[in-house]
């Protein structure tokens, strides 16, 4: 079954940029979680989540991001969330997650 989520990773100077393509939902959240945890554990750096091509996310995906944020913070680093589409930005506002992540 083809996944509706594609995850690209790019090493930058101050952060690893993760580009999300498609949908993070109940069927893909686990895949995102494993991928982000492994990046965080290996790289111990800031994360930038580029959401330019993220079409959908719900509480399953937001839960994963919060879990990853905890881990990143333990290492004294942070998560930047960038280029949210309007509907997804609204979800961050409703849930106050815009105050937890660094929104760009």
């Amino acid at each position, binding site marked *: *079954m083809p996944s*509706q989520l594609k995850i690209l990773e790019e090493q930058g100077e101050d952060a690893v940029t993760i580009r999300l393509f498609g*949908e993070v*939902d*109940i*069927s893909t959240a686990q895949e995102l979680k494993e991928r982000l945890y492994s990046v965080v554990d290996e790289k111990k750096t800031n994360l930038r989540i580029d959401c330019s091509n993220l079409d*959908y996310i*719900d*509480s*399953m995906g*937001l*839960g994963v991001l919060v879990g990853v944020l905890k881990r990143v913070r333990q290492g004294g680093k942070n998560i930047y969330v960038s280029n949210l589409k*309007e*509907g997804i930005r*609204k*979800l961050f506002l*409703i*849930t106050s997650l815009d105050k937890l992540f660094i929104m760009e």
Partner: protein
Amino acid sequence: MAERSESIELTLPFKAEYVSIARLVASGVAARIGFDMDVIDDVKVAISEVCNKLVKADSSVASSFRIRFEIEKDRLTVAFACEDKSLGRLFKEENEELGMYIVAALMDEVEYSPGDGSLFRMSKVVEGLN
């Protein structure tokens, strides 16, 4: 726009892979009613959140649950039902979960113990049309 109440029903297995089908139907129905794109997105998220809850709970009795889209002149109501009535326990107003919090924020009305035999109902009102 629909002139009288009409309904479309979707029956899904308790499987994560099929929740996206509910979103497809939601966008089709909401677009036909004349909801704006951003309202359609809200409805899609709300429906998915309820499906997520059902799929995560699963059922030892039933193999599927039903989503009924009730299309009225001025609103879309989405009701969730299942042979396994015990799943009603999942839907309580005093819920602290992120998912149901998002549902309540995005929809115009939510009913945690609907009298019609369904497990949960929620509505979105069509604005600026009539």
